[in-house]
């Protein structure tokens, strides 16, 4: 490669690296000074935006006698909304919890139960600002509401726990009593592999079934 071209490419790379460095400094400065303000306005914009909502595959009906859904929603469909007013969470719930679905909202582990069925309900979501970044701020006694297509279910936060990601026994699937378990990677503000999960446990305190 001719020397002039080498020199030019080196200059360009240096200028790019310098510019990138200052951009990162600026982003870090904004993050630590006024990120809360930005987040507030982004949330307002999100609420005002017209978003495409995915419809559930079938109207989901609930059999109160057997305490089971008459037909489970198909994988990848939206069957409800998760709301935690104390930390500003208002997100769609998708059936399934693969990585593709977790990019869109809260997942529902298909091996767990649905609200109203009386068992463990396990729901993960990413720890980004759009999803569960503020989950660790949830306190015991806070209210969680799940508005499903077949009814509305209210839970009170009974405890929070930090668990190891390789210990699924901390999220047991059982059918003896209804407990909601929301989890996300922890800590929420660091980079790198997260070996912990922050879990919020909720006990059912109210249920209203759609007619």
């Amino acid at each position, binding site marked *: 490669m001719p020397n002039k071209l080498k020199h030019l490419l080196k200059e360009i790379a240096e200028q790019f690296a310098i510019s990138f*460095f200052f951009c990162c400094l600026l982003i870090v400065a904004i993050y630590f000074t006024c990120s809360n303000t930005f987040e507030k306005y982004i949330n307002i914009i999100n609420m005002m935006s017209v978003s495409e909502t995915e419809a559930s595959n079938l109207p989901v009906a609930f059999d109160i006698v057997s305490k089971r859904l008459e037909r489970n929603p*198909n994988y990848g469909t939206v069957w409800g909304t998760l709301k935690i007013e104390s930390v500003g969470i208002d997100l769609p719930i998708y059936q399934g919890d693969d990585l593709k679905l977790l990019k869109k909202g809260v997942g529902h*582990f298909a091996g767990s139960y649905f609200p109203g069925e009386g068992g463990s309900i396990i729901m993960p979501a990413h720890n980004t600002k759009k999803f569960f970044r503020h989950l660790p701020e949830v306190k015991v006694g806070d209210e969680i509401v799940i508005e499903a297509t077949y009814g509305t279910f209210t839970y009170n936060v009974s405890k929070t726990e930090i668990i190891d990601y390789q210990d699924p026994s901390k999220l047991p699937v059982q059918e003896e009593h209804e407990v909601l378990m929301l989890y996300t990677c922890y800590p929420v503000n660091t980079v790198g592999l997260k070996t912990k999960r922050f879990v919020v446990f909720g006990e059912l305190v109210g249920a209203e079934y759609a007619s």
Partner: protein
Amino acid sequence: MKKLFVMLVAVALFGGVAKVNAMSEDELYNKLTKSYTINGETYKVSDAVKKQIKDYLKDFEVSSKDADYISGKVDELVKTAEKSNVKPDEIPATVKTAFIEAVRDVAANTSVNATISEGNDGLVLTVLDENGEVYSKIDNADVTIRKTGSEAYIVMIAGAISVIGFAVIAKKVAKGNA
């Protein structure tokens, strides 16, 4: 092995549209969720898979013919595992291949509407409903704690470029002072 085995058990339930006559749903459920002892190790179906089996029986009907065929495949797989000296954390390639072939055989010879593929977390069993829509996916027989962190590698790359930029600036400053 446990996870492969219970996935096949799950496949046993994910198919068929005719009514069960010879075997009741409870009997079928019990047969498919019982534990198996192979080479001294006991393999049990997890509560999560039991739930998914129950859900499928609730939402679909399984013909006795299909159930018998699939049950036979489960027995064959157990024998293959026994011969291969399988252990809980050591799944011989022969067993994995036998499992995949068994799933595809079931899909070809029964009303089962399912496919199996290799995902990031291992084998993924995709079950379709009568309309060809995805009804369920199983990529792990137990509760899987998902990766729910942010995209850290992007931040790391950005950080690396920033460090290079800082180094270039420092070099220029040093040159200027020299």
